């Protein structure tokens, strides 16, 4: 269960302060608490348990979400197979922009995660914030895509193919929205001195979820492109 954590790199000329969770007077806690106490004993990492717990939580949650989309997929396969009213339509071009945004956000959150234990506080915060913005932009881009389709007269009830398009993209967007909330929370955790113990767990779990959302989107895009 124990996760080995790299000791914080000591930047020359900078002294690492012990964590002061109770001081609310500004100033961020150090990137990582000193891994040795005053007597020189190695401290157990209080956040290690949370990391395992949060990450497992993310994986279990993913299993649940997979079932929802598996159900939608099987419904789509069955529905397109049973009757002859399936009419394909061209996906809006902007979806490719959405895809690029999401892929980029996967990169940025990974970047943030890598910085977690390195002590580069500014970088961590910056990359998380960038991911958050990219996630929000993704939703905006999806929204534009829906508008574009609607302008062409393709609505939810026009055809089963469009029904499934709106359904799948909207269900995915709802989950991205959840991810954006989780990211906001992660950003809050990184900022807030009071909860630094679980911040690593939060960021890592959010990263897992975010990568999954990325993968799920690629899957949906392929499904919508090729199953028409």
């Amino acid at each position, binding site marked *: 269960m124990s996760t080995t954590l790299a000791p914080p790199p000591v930047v020359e000329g900078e002294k690492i302060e012990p964590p002061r969770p109770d001081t609310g007077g500004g100033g961020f806690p150090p990137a990582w608490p000193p891994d040795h106490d005053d007597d020189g004993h190695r401290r157990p990492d209080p956040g290690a348990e949370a990391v*395992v717990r949060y990450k*497992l939580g993310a994986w*279990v949650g993913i299993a*649940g979400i997979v079932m*929802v*989309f598996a159900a939608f997929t099987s*419904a789509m396969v*069955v*529905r397109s197979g049973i*009757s002859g009213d399936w009419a394909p339509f061209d996906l809006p071009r902007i979806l490719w922009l959405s895809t690029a945004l999401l892929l980029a956000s996967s990169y940025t959150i990974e970047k943030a995660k890598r910085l977690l234990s390195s002590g580069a506080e500014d970088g961590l915060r910056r990359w998380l914030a960038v991911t958050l913005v990219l996630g929000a932009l993704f939703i905006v881009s999806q929204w534009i895509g829906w508008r574009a389709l609607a302008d062409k007269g393709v609505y939810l009830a026009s055809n089963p193919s469009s029904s499934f398009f709106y359904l799948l993209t909207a269900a995915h967007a709802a989950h991205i929205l959840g991810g954006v909330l989780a990211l906001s929370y992660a950003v809050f955790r990184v900022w807030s001195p009071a909860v630094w113990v679980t911040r690593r767990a939060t960021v890592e779990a959010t990263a897992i979820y975010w990568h999954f959302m990325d993968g799920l989107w690629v899957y949906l895009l392929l499904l919508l492109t090729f199953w028409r």
Partner: protein
Amino acid sequence: MNEVAEYVEVHRHPEPKSFISRWIFSLDHKVIGIQYVMLAVVAVFIGMALSLLIRLRLVWPEQAVPLLGDLFPVGAPDGIMTPEFYLSMLTMHGTMMVFMVLTTAPQGGFGNYVLPIQIGANDMAFPRLNMLSFWTTFLSFCALMMAFFVEGGAPISGWTAYPPLSALDSAVIAGTGQDWWIISIALFCVASLLGALNFIVTTLELRAKGLTMMRLPLTVWTWFVTAILGLLAFGVLLAAGVLLLLDRNLGTSFFIPAGLVINDQLIDRSGGSPILWQHLFWFFGHPEVYIAILPGMGVTSHILATFARKPVFGYKVMVYAVAAIGGLGFVVWGHHMFMSGMSPYSAFVFSVLTMCIGVPSAIKTFNWIGTLWGGKIRFTSPMLYSVGFVSLFVTGGLSGIFLGQPTVDLFFHDTYFVVAHFHLIMGVAAIFGMFAGLTFWFPKMFGRFMNEGLSKVHFWLTFLGVYAIFGPMHYLGMLPHPRRYAEITGVDYLAAGGSAEIHYFITIAAMITITAQLIFLFNLVWSLFKGKVCSDDNPWEATTLEWAVPTPPPYDNFAGKIPTVYRGAYDFSLPKAKRDYAMQCNSDDMVYQQAAGD
């Protein structure tokens, strides 16, 4: 605190001070567990009232029910229930019982309260998520209640909500009852998914030192497997519910086929599949049956061992059986659809798989009897309920052998035989599991015993009562009496077969049994305030960790000192031990050493 060999010290969380954060929006798994149980108690009495109305409508259709006319002026003008009101009652009874009672109390209620303590955890893995689960469930309950009072009344399509009936207002009564029903179910799915996530992570990650998976109490195993079932099943129902909601309100046709004509009106939809709904629904629906019954099995195993003073017979086999039931539960949904026109070949495969699920169920039954065999049985009320559970489980399970064969199902499908089957096994047996659990853990939860005398009276009336209600329903199925008929007269072969007499008998039995539940309610409330005080931390001389903590348990269960576990969950009557039970936190030294001195 009971004697503990060794413990691991962990960080203590401070107890919240304000009333709201302590009792309403509580993060404490124990409070949340009690909230779930309370919700289920409210729901079960509503559900039971509905079943009473159903029975009254069947045998005295012309009789006015007092107050009902004021509550439902449309469905029951002057208190006389209309046939559509009967169908609403039936739908809501099923939904209320299956979701708000059978899914919440065993898992969300008892699981929430007991599981963390039994595995030696301070709380669930994600307390905030836990709170969110409960309050989402509560919202879901409110949405379901809304369905009664909106225009058009509660839905009439049964708890299975088969489209096109559930999808088209023109096929029933125009109104939003069915929409509220779907919203309620969708919320419930979300809540259950969050709950399942929490249970799984908690069981995997937060076990005390030394508590390996094969040392877990069987209750924990069943809650764990139930959580896995919930995680994989509720998402599918959620998806199906979303599709149905879109079909009803936004003009899509996922489930509505082309060319339907209702009242000479052509329905303007294209090529959906009603069978698709059935597949999605039952892919959830069959695991749901095990979600309801598995925790009851766990509680029964636990209590039988405790009061027979014997280890559970074949512990490992019991664990494998639970896992097998859970796994097979996902591949048998087709047996609900034998008569839907599915391919006869797949029907046959589903049938074989269904019969396979009978095997672990039989194994569990025989192991329960094996646990009793050679024991020193103490008949406290939890034990009575557990033995009742075994009997009901056998009776209800064996009728499943009929329904699981498509050949025999040709006759029994959609008759009262099915009603008898699922009420006995997933309804009443699961409820007996809850009665057993409540009487068993009540002293730990509230520091007072439930009144033994009242519990025993309640047990006898209920045990005989439910057999009197559901036993004869098998005979109705032989006639064969179709389910969901608002009137029992009219069908010739039923009149000739004597169905009316059976119905009268069942209604009388139901009235008595339902009245007997007031004894239980009284006992519950009375015991909370006036019950015999439980001064002992381990009044039943049980072995698992919840009996090693003070009564009632403090805010974070172990006061920061998590005991180390040395042994399996059911070390009763160990030879040469100083007493006839060894708690999981007792080291061998503690169990055997003083024996010589005695």
